[in-house]
């Protein structure tokens, strides 16, 4: 038995998981999570700039 592995396999799947979401959500959710993470970083940067008086 062979499961498909990606570079992020360790973070994206439990070792024994054989289950997936519907195809759309399988692909969309990680994209959303990455974008949300980037947005948080941007807001942190802007907040820091405000506190330091740059903005």
């Amino acid at each position, binding site marked *: 038995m062979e499961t498909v592995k990606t570079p992020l396999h360790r973070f994206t799947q439990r070792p024994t998981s054989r289950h997936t979401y519907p195809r759309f959500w399988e692909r969309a959710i990680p994209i959303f999570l990455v974008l*949300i993470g980037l947005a948080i970083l941007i807001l942190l940067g802007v907040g820091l700039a405000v506190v330091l008086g740059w903005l």
Partner: protein
Amino acid sequence: MNFVTTVLPFLSSAVSLLFALLVLWRFMRKRGPHHLLWGIGMLFYAIGGFCEGYYGAFGWNPLIFRLWYLFGAMLVAAWLGQGTAYLLIRRRGVAHMLMAILLIGSIYGAIRVFSAELDPALMSGGLHTASELSGRAIVTPGVRTLTPFFNLYGTVLLVGGAAYSAWLFWRKRVLLHRTIGNVLIAIGALLPAFGGTFSRMGIPGALYISEFLGAVLLFAGFLRATMPLPQSAEAPQVSQTVTS
């Protein structure tokens, strides 16, 4: 009557109030502290929206401004985030400690906002047309400096907490409705944060539009997370495997 500066904030307020009442009703049934804090946070959201709509409809009022700044600009994100803290932080003592700090900070913020000197003329200048409420009306130094600390704390907890929850569910490929709901909550919480940033940079309409969309997505996310999808959509699918 301008739609963006009057009707839209009242709509945000109505959506937020409805959401708050639903969450507080859940608190009455289940007694989870996160429900109580989210409910209070959404009440703050509703107060902020109402004050914005009031300003758009009736003009300047110092009390309305102070209420808007305190609840809508300063505290809403932090109290919503604190609700997420109670949900996700396992050590209840840590959550209580953060709550105590937030409470003290909120009281201090309230004192500073209600004792601050105001000048509504300062809301117009540069790209600002004074058609929207803006923290620029606060003359007293040091008051506006408090806001980013509350907002950063709340945004990181609320957005980060929702994203973390979504990632946990996605990683295990379970409870799709909660994954989707948490993604919607994270996006809904991000929108007003960016709207406030764009407003500070002088982009008109950004704050009110983002607040309305944020309230809608937060509400939608909460409803999605608490209501499972139909069995066929929710049930995990067995991945294709190659048998040797």
